[in-house]
């Protein structure tokens, strides 16, 4: 659909002669080499690699937060509240004298936890429902898709707030509320790709060769649909992290005492113009994280389906 960078898109430019030359030099789609191919295309995309770097950095920071953070993110020091960056606190301290750098470092944990878990859950629900709808069709399909419509009709943040009203604040409610309103996209994606793949030549061929339906679904349809889901997932983890921070920012996300970026921003909002370091650094953390996932998502999508670029 869209293009990201010059470097990746030039290949897609191959006009008549070059295309002909390349296409015929690599007959059909060699499915064996598909994953290698994808990796190759992904790694050729500079932004995707930068994104991968950012995401890896995020994961590593989350994993080794206790080693990286110089202080306990919860340790208060009421004699040193609202300290400007420097003086033993790299990024300053908040209203309770807690070390902001340590809080940002620990914030990666919540971001990773909620981002990954909610999208994983959404994909799980989405794949199952989408596969059922796409496979059974007819009544099952229309019932499942209407259900998906209902959830799809809630704007993500608004829907999430409704669920959190019922479940209360906290990590689990945030994960669930984000997943509950994200899965319809996945199931639509899966369903439509099942419907298109169902008639694809190699599936017809498999069917003609007498493969049974379940085998066709597991061996042919799902692996081919999963590509689209994966690109969506990578992209959406970033979105989920933004949504999660937004909820906290609005005061309905994880509990306020948890070191989490949205919470930090919410607490810093009133210090605008007085203590700006309180909101700038968590903002940077969020932006880098989200960009990482966006780049990876874009790169994956382009690598999985060069046509779409």
């Amino acid at each position, binding site marked *: 659909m869209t293009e990201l960078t010059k*470097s990746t898109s*030039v*290949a897609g*430019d*191959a*006009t*008549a*002669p*070059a295309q*002909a*030359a*390349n296409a*015929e*030099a690599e007959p059909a789609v060699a499915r064996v080499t598909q994953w290698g191919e994808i990796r190759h295309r992904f790694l050729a995309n500079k932004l995707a690699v930068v994104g991968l770097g950012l995401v890896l950095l995020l994961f590593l920071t989350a994993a080794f937060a206790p080693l990286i953070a110089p202080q306990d993110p919860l340790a208060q020091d009421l004699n040193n509240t609202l300290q400007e960056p420097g003086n033993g606190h790299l990024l300053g301290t908040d209203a309770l004298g807690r070390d902001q750098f340590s809080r940002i470092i620990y914030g990666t944990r919540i971001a990773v936890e909620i981002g990954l878990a909610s999208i994983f859950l959404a994909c799980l629900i989405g794949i199952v429902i989408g596969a059922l709808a796409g496979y059974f069709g007819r009544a099952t399909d229309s019932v499942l898709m209407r259900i998906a419509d209902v959830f799809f009709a809630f704007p993500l943040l608004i829907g999430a707030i409704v669920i959190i009203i019922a479940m209360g604040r906290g990590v689990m409610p945030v994960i669930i509320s984000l997943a509950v309103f994200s899965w319809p996209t996945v199931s639509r994606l899966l369903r439509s790709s099942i419907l298109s793949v169902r008639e694809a030549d190699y599936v017809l061929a498999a069917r003609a060769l007498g493969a049974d339906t379940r085998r066709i679904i597991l061996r042919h349809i799902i692996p081919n649909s999963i590509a689209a889901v994966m690109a969506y997932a990578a992209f959406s983890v970033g979105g989920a992290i933004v949504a999660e921070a937004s909820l906290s920012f609005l005061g309905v996300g994880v509990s306020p005492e948890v070191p989490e970026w949205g919470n930090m921003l919410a607490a810093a909002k009133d210090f605008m113009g007085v203590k700006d370091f309180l909101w700038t650094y968590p903002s940077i953390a969020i932006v880098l994280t989200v960009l990482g996932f966006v780049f990876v998502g874009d790169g994956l999508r382009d690598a999985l389906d060069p046509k779409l670029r």
Partner: protein
Amino acid sequence: MTASSTTADVPRQRGGDSEAPVLEVRDLHVEFATREGVVKAVNGVNYSVSSGETLAVLGESGSGKSVTAQAIMGILDSPPGRVAKGEILFRGQDILKLPENERRKLRGPKMAMIFQDALSALNPVFSVGNQLGEMFRVHQGMSKKDAKVKAIELMDRVKIPAAKSRVDDYPHQFSGGMRQRIMIAMALALEPDLIIADEPTTALDVTVQAQVMDLLADLQREYNMGLILITHDLGVVADVADKIAVMYAGRIVEQAPVHELYKRPAHPYTRGLLDSIPRLDQKGQELYAIKGLPPNLLKAPSGCAFNPRCPKAQDICRTEMPPLLQVTEQDGTELAGRASACHFREEQLHG
């Protein structure tokens, strides 16, 4: 009506200088810049076509035949494509030197193109009447209403039934054959001197192919236009073309009047093409196929580009590029309009 007066005039004019070609392509080179390197799609093509004459350009996909046509029309994708060298003379004038705006004015009134796949070549979101009428509106400043009348006339002209009621239909509502007729109508709209038809029947059913081809040939005769027919289908060519240029890897490898070529090809590639046509009298025999694949234009083989696939390739074929040269009879008399780019053209012709 203006239309009838012009149709009456023009052929006479054209008849007047039928000796001078409408279009002459000289040493045309076209390149594409890609990430992997420069693709030389057309490497020194020469050909010409006169009024009322049909030139068939033959070749596999990727041979540069379509690119040549696009270069003539001035619709190359550029970047990355560009004409690196050469001249395209339209009625004696090198149109590559014209400013874009002048050149644009040639397209439509003077030269027109018919594309292979009418479904994708027609804009899906506008009615056919709109797209046909656009020619008149843009080039002749006609009103919308008049343009529509002309569009209906044109559709009648290309034998689309119930033209009046279908003029507001969209391309996807027509059958393949009908769509191609609309393409033809659009090309003919302003009665150009030259029509380039890029595989006009490839996408059609065989039965429809003949109808469309006949229609095109009839109209060409009627308007006395020059026609460049690009195709990879030798069967189509035989009936309509006057002369043939065979292209391979961006070059013309053989040129000949149509029947000569069929009778006696002077290039092994042409031979291969001819042999791969299924024939009724050889039923039951294994079909001939040229082995191997067309060359990668990024790294064309040294020497003759066809050498890796050529059954008769010798050492010289792998080192030296054969130029396109006059072909002679065994007695040395020149064969009019015949040329071949093969080191062993004479052997091929006579052997």
